[in-house]
C-alpha cells in the first residue's frame, strides 16, 4: 500500500485517498483493533470472526510466540512460558510485581522494569506486548487489505510516564507508527460522545482486567476536555478472580497447588465470576493435573461480600477526581461504564449509589475503548470525518524533581492539560560546583522515596562560580502523548548545556531499531527496504502538504524569494524519492521542512487570528 501510493515520478498521490488507520485497545485480558469504515467505527475480526484477541502470549522452544486463543488455552499446561496480563508488568519493577501475589514466571530484576525468563529467552514486558500488538497489526492489515498508516494505542489514564513509554516502545517494535497514545476513558468518551451528541460533564468509570481509571470530562461541541483523572493502575477484574481463587484454595486445602493448577483454579474463578453476573449462584468443576476433581460453588452474596473491599477501593479515586475537578456528584450529568469488569452487578450498584443516578451502558464495555480510538486514529491520519474533534487531556500524576533532604518538588501538577512545559530554576550550593545531579520523579507524595523514579541525569560543564550564583533552569515538557522530556541549562554564563532524558526504561531509538530487526527476523535488506519505503511515503506526504499550503497561502504570506527557496527544495526532493537512498531522502525532506518554518509559523498565526476574529463577530451578532 505504502509503495503503491507513489505512482509515476512527478505525479502526486490521489489527494483524498483514505489512509488506513486503526485504534488499538491493548488490554490486560483482551485486546482489540478497530477502524472507521464508511464513517462508522467497527471492531475488526480475526480469521475466525472473533473480535477479541486474548492478551496471552506463549513462548515456544524454537523461539516463536503463539498469541491469543491458542496461547490462552495452553496456559495451564505451560504456565511458566505463557504470559497473561502482561500489561500489569509494563514499566514496573520487581517490587511492584511482587504485590500481585504468586505468579508462575521466573522474574528477573532489571533496571526499571522486570524481565521474564522463558523457554524462548529473556523477555521484557515490552517484548510480550509487542508480540500482542504485532498480532493485531497483522490481523488489521489482513482485514483491511493494506498497510497501516498508523495507530492510536490506548493506555490507562492513570499510567505513569514509564508505563506510557513502555507501551509506545512496544508499538514501535511491533512495526506500528503510533499516531497518538490515548487515555482509555477519553477514548470511551469519544465513542459515547459522538454517538449520543452529548453535552455536559461526564464521569467515565473504567474498570478493566487489571487497571482502574476514572476521568471527569466536559463535552462541548466536539471538544472533549478532561478536567481530572485518577485511578489505580493495579486494580481490575483480575483481583476479583484472585479473591475467588484464594477463597477456594482455603476451602479446599489447596495451599500447595502448583503453577498449572493455580492457573486452572483462576480460570474457573473467572468462569464462575462471569456466570454470577446473571445468576444468583454458579458452580463448576476443577480438574487438577493429577486427576483429582473438585466441585466448586459460589453464590452471588458470597462473591459480593468477599470483593466488597475491592469495589470500595475503586470509589476512592472517584472522590479524588471529583475533588480535583472541583465538582460534586450533583454536577455529573452522566456516568459512562467501561471495561468488562463493570458488568458485575455489585460494581454497577456501587457506582449508581455513589452518584445517585443510573449509568450509561448502551455500548459494549469491552469494545467502546477500541471504537473511540479508531475514531481518533481516523481523524489523526488526516481522513476527513466531518466531525471536528478536539481532545484536551491531562497528565494523571505530578512530575517533579528531588531537592535537598529527599523531598520531591513538583514542577508540573497532576491534571495539567497537555501539552505543557514548565521551567524551574535551581542554583549551586558549593563554590566552584561544576555539575548538578537531577532526579526526575512522578507522584503525589512529599518524599522522593514514595514517588516513582523516572530518570536521573547530571548536568555537567557548569562554569565555576560562587555558590548560589549559577542559574540552572530545568525544563519539563510533556507532549500530547503524555510523555515527558527534561532539559537542563545554565543561564547566567551563557553556556548552555542541554540534555534530553527519557525515563530509565525508555529505549533509545537505536535499541528499538535493533529489536525491530530482530523481532521481524528480517534480513538486513528487508529492514532497509522498510525504512526506504517509510522515508518515501513521508517525503511524498511532505511535498503534498507543502504544495497544498503554497497554493492556499503562498502568495499572501511569502515574498518571492522565500517562495523560490521552497520551490527549489521541492524540486530537489521530488526526483530523489525514486532513488534508493533513504538517508538522502530524509536529509532533503528535513531541508524542505526547514525552508517552510517561517511560512508555517505565519500560517498558524493567521489561522489563530482568524479563528478569534470569527468568534468576536459572532459575539457581536449575538448582542
Amino acid at each position, binding site marked *: 500500500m505504502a509503495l503503491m501510493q507513489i505512482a509515476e515520478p512527478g505525479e502526486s498521490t490521489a489527494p483524498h485517498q483514505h489512509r488506513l488507520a486503526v485504534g488499538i485497545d491493548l488490554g490486560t485480558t483482551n485486546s482489540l483493533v478497530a477502524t472507521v469504515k464508511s464513517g462508522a467505527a467497527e471492531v475488526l475480526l480475526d480469521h475466525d470472526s472473533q473480535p477479541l484477541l486474548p492478551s496471552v502470549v506463549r513462548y515456544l522452544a524454537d523461539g516463536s510466540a503463539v498469541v491469543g486463543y491458542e496461547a490462552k488455552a495452553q496456559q495451564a499446561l505451560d504456565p511458566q512460558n505463557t504470559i497473561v496480563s502482561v500489561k500489569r508488568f509494563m514499566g514496573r519493577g520487581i517490587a511492584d510485581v511482587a504485590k500481585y501475589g504468586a505468579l508462575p514466571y521466573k522474574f528477573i530484576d532489571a533496571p526499571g522494569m522486570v524481565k521474564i525468563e522463558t523457554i524462548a529467552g529473556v523477555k521484557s514486558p515490552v517484548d510480550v506486548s509487542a508480540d500482542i500488538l504485532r498480532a493485531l497489526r497483522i490481523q488489521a492489515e489482513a482485514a483491511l487489505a493494506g498497510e497501516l498508516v*498508523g495507530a492510536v494505542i490506548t493506555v490507562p489514564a492513570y499510567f505513569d510516564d514509564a508505563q506510557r513509554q513502555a507501551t509506545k516502545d512496544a508499538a514501535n517494535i511491533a512495526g506500528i507508527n503510533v499516531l497518538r497514545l490515548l487515555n482509555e476513558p477519553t477514548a470511551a468518551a469519544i465513542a459515547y460522545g459522538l454517538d449520543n451528541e452529548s453535552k455536559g460533564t461526564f464521569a467515565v468509570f473504567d474498570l478493566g482486567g487489571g487497571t482502574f481509571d476514572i476521568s471527569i470530562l466536559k463535552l462541548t*461541541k466536539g471538544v472533549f476536555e478532561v478536567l481530572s483523572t485518577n485511578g489505580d493502575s493495579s486494580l481490575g477484574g483480575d483481583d476479583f478472580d484472585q479473591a475467588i481463587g484464594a477463597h477456594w484454595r482455603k476451602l479446599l486445602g489447596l495451599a500447595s497447588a502448583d503453577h498449572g493448577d493455580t492457573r486452572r483454579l483462576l480460570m474457573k474463578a473467572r468462569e464462575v465470576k462471569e456466570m454470577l453476573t446473571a445468576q444468583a449462584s454458579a458452580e463448576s468443576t476443577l480438574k487438577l493435573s493429577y486427576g483429582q476433581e473438585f466441585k466448586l460453588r459460589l453464590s452471588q452474596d458470597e462473591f459480593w461480600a468477599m470483593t466488597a473491599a475491592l469495589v470500595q477501593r475503586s470509589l476512592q479515586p472517584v472522590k479524588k477526581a471529583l475533588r480535583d475537578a472541583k465538582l460534586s456528584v450533583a454536577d455529573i450529568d452522566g456516568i459512562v461504564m467501561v471495561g468488562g469488569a463493570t458488568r458485575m452487578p455489585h460494581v454497577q450498584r456501587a457506582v449508581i449509589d455513589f452518584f445517585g443516578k443510573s449509568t450509561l451502558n448502551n455500548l459494549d464495555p469491552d469494545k467502546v475503548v477500541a471504537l473511540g480510538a479508531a475514531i481518533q486514529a481516523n481523524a489523526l491520519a488526516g481522513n476527513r470525518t466531518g466531525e471536528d474533534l478536539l481532545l484536551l487531556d491531562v497528565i494523571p500524576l505530578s512530575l517533579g524533581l528531588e531537592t535537598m533532604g529527599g523531598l520531591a518538588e513538583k514542577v508540573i501538577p497532576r491534571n495539567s492539560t497537555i501539552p505543557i512545559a514548565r521551567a524551574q530554576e535551581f542554583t549551586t550550593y558549593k563554590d566552584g560546583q561544576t555539575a548538578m545531579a537531577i532526579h526526575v520523579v512522578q507522584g503525589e507524595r512529599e518524599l522522593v522515596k514514595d514517588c516513582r523514579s523516572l530518570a536521573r541525569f547530571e548536568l555537567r560543564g557548569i562554569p565555576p562560580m560562587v555558590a548560589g550564583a549559577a542559574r540552572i533552569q530545568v525544563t519539563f515538557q510533556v*507532549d500530547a502523548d503524555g510523555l515527558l522530556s527534561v532539559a537542563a541549562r545554565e543561564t547566567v554564563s551563557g553556556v548552555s548545556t542541554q540534555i534530553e532524558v527519557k525515563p530509565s526504561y525508555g529505549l533509545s531509538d537505536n535499541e528499538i531499531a535493533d529489536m525491530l530487526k530482530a523481532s521481524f527476523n528480517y534480513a538486513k535488506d528487508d529492514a532497509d527496504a522498510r525504512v526506504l519505503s517509510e522515508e518515501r511515503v513521508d517525503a511524498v506526504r511532505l511535498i503534498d502538504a*507543502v504544495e497544498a499550503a503554497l497554493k492556499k497561502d503562498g502568495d499572501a504570506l511569502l515574498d518571492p524569494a522565500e517562495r523560490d527557496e521552497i520551490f527549489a527544495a521541492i524540486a530537489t526532493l521530488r526526483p530523489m524519492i525514486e532513488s534508493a537512498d533513504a538517508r538522502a531522502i530524509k536529509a532533503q525532506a528535513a531541508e524542505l*521542512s526547514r525552508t517552510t518554518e517561517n511560512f*508555517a509559523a505565519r500560517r498558524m498565526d493567521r489561522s489563530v487570528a482568524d479563528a478569534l476574529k470569527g468568534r468576536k463577530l459572532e459575539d457581536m451578532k449575538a448582542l
Partner: protein
Amino acid sequence: MTIDFTKNHFDLFHLPISFQMDLAALDAAYRDVQREVHPDKFTTASDAEKRLAAQWATRANEAYQTLKTPLNRGRYFLKIHGIETEEESNTAMPLEFLMQQMEWREAVVDARSNKDEAKLDALATQKNADEKLLFGQLSAELNQPSTFAEARLTVRKLRFTEKLGEEIDDAFEAVER
C-alpha cells in the same frame, strides 16, 4: 520560527486586560485557539509544523490555566503591570491573619487525626467563605491602579488560603483511605 511571545495572555485570546473575566468568553477563545493549533491537527504535517503546533498548544494551555483561576489571574495581572507579588520573599503578614491561619491549620491536623469528616467539611466551607471575601477585595483593588500595590498583600493572603485548601484536600484523602 516566530511565535510572538511578547504578547500577553489576554492579548493572545483577544480579551481585554482586566481582572474581571468573562469565563465563557475565555473558554470559547481557548477552544478556538486549540482547534487551530493542537498537535492532533498536525499528525501528518511537516516536522516544522509539528514543533510549532506543540509550542502553540503549550502556550495556549499555559495562558488558559493562568487566566482561568482568579489567584493566578490576579498575580499575572499585577505582573504585566510591573508589580511582583513577592510571595516567596515577603513574609510580613498581619499578625491577626497569621494567627487565624495557624488556628485553621491546627484544626485541619486535628480533624485529620480524628478522622472527622464533618469537621473537615466545616473547615472547607469556612475557608471558601474567607477566600470569597478576599477575592472580592482583590477584584476591587485591581479595578484601579491606585490600589494595585495593596493587591499584593491580598494575593499573598490568598496564597495562604490556597495552601490551606490543599491541606484540607490531603486530609480528606487521608481520612477516606
